[in-house]
């Protein structure tokens, strides 16, 4: 399968991407993903998008709007409602030399395709003794906050991060949304990209040339000295807002955006822990067995003697996300929760 590799790297190369978007630009998260897909489709004819209503409808959240008209029904491919088959077909197409982008409307529906993702996509390379790599990118919407209730609102990205053989990324900024897809397509193995539904309308800057973003390093979004707030995806804004409030309160919080949930960037995490000696992890996943537990456990293992206070977690309440606005708001991490947890860690009291 080596033959596949060199060209597969193409879409990632700066030059190619630069061609299409020279100057820095401000756009929405939704547009950033769309632009990234458009670039990739132009850069490599093995790239195609498939999923439910990605074409004629324009994407259930409008992400692929316009691509159907630009690239046609073969490459912007509407699928029947058959999550297991079209995700599996994405795996097969990847094995057949394509670079598929498969869109699953919402993370809850991805459970219908979990067998294909875990038992095949993640295991294929190893089961075949290294013969069959699966250069597949699966994109899906995740997260709560839009009153979509218990079958449309969960955050399983941290859960997926348990599976060896796949990468799990969660772009939280417009620049990352713009820059991670090319890198994901250039990766020879399956990459799951989680887009928090609450971020689609957020807007931000994309640097000139829309530089590719790697799939393993966390980013320090804000420097601080008193405490390290670790988060990713949809809770980055919440966490940055908390850092502002803490600053006003005289607490200097560093904010680490994980970006990649598998693998985790232990180096950046421990670096910040060693600097601040106090940690709060903010994670929209359900608390028990969340990625925040893994991070806490790794800090325990790698930086125990650096800690001045136990690592704290601010997660979603362990409940199927309810519809009613006030209940949903109560169920997911709020800025106040983060502030309170940070105060407790620093001063021993919220």
């Amino acid at each position, binding site marked *: 399968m080596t033959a596949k590799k060199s060209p597969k790297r193409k879409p990632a190369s700066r030059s190619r991407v630069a061609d299409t978007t020279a100057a820095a630009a401000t756009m929405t998260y939704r547009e950033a993903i769309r632009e990234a897909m458009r670039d990739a489709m132009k850069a490599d004819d093995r790239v195609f998008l498939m999923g439910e209503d990605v074409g*004629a409808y324009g994407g*259930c959240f409008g992400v692929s709007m316009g691509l159907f008209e630009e690239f046609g029904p073969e490459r912007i491919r509407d699928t029947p409602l058959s999550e297991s088959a079209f995700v599996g077909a994405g795996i097969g197409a990847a094995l057949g030399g394509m670079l598929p982008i498969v869109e699953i409307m919402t993370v809850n529906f991805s459970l219908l395709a979990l067998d294909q993702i875990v038992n095949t996509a993640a295991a294929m390379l190893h089961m075949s003794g290294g013969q069959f790599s699966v250069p597949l990118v699966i994109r899906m919407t995740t997260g709560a906050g839009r009153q979509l209730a*218990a079958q*449309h609102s969960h955050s399983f990205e941290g859960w997926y991060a348990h599976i060896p053989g796949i990468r799990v990324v969660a772009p939280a900024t417009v620049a990352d949304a713009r820059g991670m897809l090319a890198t994901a397509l250039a990766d020879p193995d399956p990459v799951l990209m989680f887009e928090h539904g609450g971020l689609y309308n957020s807007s931000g800057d994309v640097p000139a040339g829309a530089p590719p973003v790697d799939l393993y390093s966390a980013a320090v979004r804000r420097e601080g000295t008193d405490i390290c707030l670790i988060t990713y995806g949809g809770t980055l804004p919440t966490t940055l807002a908390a850092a502002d409030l803490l600053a006003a309160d005289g607490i200097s919080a560093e904010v680490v955006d994980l970006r990649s949930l598998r693998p985790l960037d232990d180096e950046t995490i421990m670096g910040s822990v060693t600097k601040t000696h106090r940690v709060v992890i903010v994670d929209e996943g359900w608390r*028990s067995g969340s990625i925040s537990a893994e991070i806490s456990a790794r800090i325990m293992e790698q930086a125990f003697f650096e800690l001045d206070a136990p690592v704290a*977690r601010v997660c979603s309440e362990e409940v199927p996300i309810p519809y*009613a*606005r006030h209940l949903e708001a109560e*169920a997911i991490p709020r800025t106040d929760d983060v502030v309170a947890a940070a105060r407790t860690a620093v001063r021993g009291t*919220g």
Partner: protein
Amino acid sequence: MNSPVSDRIELLRRMLLVRRFEERCVELYTETKIRGFLHVYIGEEAVATGVISALDESDAVVATYREHGHALLRGVSARSVMAEMYGRVTGCSRGRGGSMHLFDATARFYGGNAIVGGGLPLAVGLALADKLQGRNRVTVCFFGEGAMAEGEFHESVNLAAVWQLPVLFVCENNLYAMGTALRRSESETNLALKASAYEIPAWSVDGMDVEAVAGTAERAVAAIRSGAGPHFLEARTYRFRAHSMFDPERYREKAEVAQWKQHDPIDAFVGKLRDEGGLDDGRLAELENQAADVIADAVAFAEDSEDEDSADLLRFVHSPGSTAEPASLRGAP
């Protein structure tokens, strides 16, 4: 109201209530009183009205996320449905479900499922329970034509057929799954023919003709009750409105929609009843007023209702009294 209904006016009354109720829901959505996803059934009312009129109180109904009408027709009160969409504690799901998750134990209304095809295995299990307990009850399962591509459809219908379970599978074929036309999602677009490949009786009916639906459903339900095993019913209908409140409708022609509106199930039935006597302007106005009153009362009720206490957020994750309940579960920040 769940005993078989012959009264034609009653069928009209029900369709009108569902139509007006959902028209009001759309207004309330734009007023941001209702949030989340809202999928209306406008144009398809004859299907659920006809089918549910063929059921007994003891029968069970499993529906989809487009189920306001099914809930009302099954006897779930307009008040509790509206309150649910408002997210109130007085709602049929105590505000936890919203539009896509209406439930009512007394009406044996098992939801309200936002996973396309997710209700089919449930219906099979409900019917299995009846068979194992020797109860002569029927379970009706509603789903759209798009759901027929899901593996759950295939597995569930086969299971019901192999075990000869008392299930009526009702496919609401409105020709689109969001923006995906039937011909782009199913290699066999004759859905009754497709279903008959499971060796079960499968019929098609004009889903815009409430009496045709009611008549066919009655025959199917009677056959199932007599032990003839699962049946499949395709109701050919059309969605007059957008899929949800977020749908730009770029996938179908306005002309096609206009064309179908010529076959509005309510207008058609009103016309029929006028021609054949039994309905005049006065009676019609009366029905409209009744519906308007019920809806106004439901909205007032929802408006005046309380929200669930936030402290009860974790209630019903497990059954009350379960050793797995909150405290242990609740993770304080």
